């Protein structure tokens, strides 16, 4: 699964730590999601989409291998 979290974060100009605080997760979680090492739960994905004001599909995209 690919995600454009880093891009969205850059657009909003917010650090990982700040984002983690707003969403209410650990900094490690945000970092691991950006690095593609962790697939967030639906709840977390929805929270992120709500924060960025974009649909989940725009932030997270399926890859061919999924």
């Amino acid at each position, binding site marked *: 699964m690919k995600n454009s979290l880093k891009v969205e974060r850059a657009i909003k100009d917010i650090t*990982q730590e700040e984002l*983690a605080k707003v969403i*209410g*997760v*650990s*900094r*490690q*979680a945000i*970092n*691991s999601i950006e*690095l593609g090492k*962790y697939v*967030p*739960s639906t*709840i*977390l994905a929805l929270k992120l989409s709500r924060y960025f004001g974009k649909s989940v599909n725009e932030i997270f995209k399926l890859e061919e291998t999924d």
Partner: protein
Amino acid sequence: MSRYKFDRNRKFFPGYKFGGGHWRSVAVQIISKPEIYHGAGFKLRADERVRVQEPLQICLECRSKSKKCDKQLTHIVRVSSRNYFVVYQQDICHNVIYTRHIVIYSCIYVNYVLHLFYNLNLPKMDTRFLLPNKFKLMGWILLVPSTILGLIQLFYLSGSGLKFLDVKMFTIYSGNFAPWGSSSVILGFDKVNFTGTIIGIFFILGAVMVAFAKEKHEDEFIAKIRLESFLWATYINYAVLIFCFLFFYGIGFMYVMIFNMFTVIILFIARFNYILYKTTKQLKYEKQS
């Protein structure tokens, strides 16, 4: 979807005749041809209404003969193909067929267990069962000294304890190596040394506190690492134990047993904290860039 119908009168296994109409017709979808072992048949996807033959029920964990659909049946299973009939009809020695069946069904079982592992859908860990974050420091304070004292007791005092900790204590069973020997005490008072007991209890309390105290920011990612680390620690522990079973005997094995009482939790703590450390380190690189 193709319909796979078993002949009513043909024995599926040597010496085993299966009856009951509803076990026979199986709607199946052939996914791939057999590639791992000969005669194991096609890889089939069973739909909800499928009933599978008895030996396969074992690996499907479904024992009931009721007509209710079993959730487990939706898993991909290996359903034996016609090769069995061919083998049977050729009248090869029964023992050979039995051995083949044992091998094949073991493979099916292992395959199913692996399948379950791959699709392990771990529920979100309930943090109610974790201790508050404060316990972490307390745990370390207990764990470190008791580890050092425990090692000292084991290697320098060779298992014996401090004199002033000799007490008379109620025991369920107390005795020497020969079980139920003349000097053993069952459900009575015996003179025991408390050194090891105290160190052991402190160690366990400390280790549990360290292992199960919440992180400062406990979330689903941490919960995932936690669960993964547990699986990993258990695997490694038992792998090491098998190794020790093979290469340690006598009093050496007793030492292995003593250590093995504590290794699962130690491995868990080590692995969990290592992964946390690694992800935090990544974070620092991220900040610099």
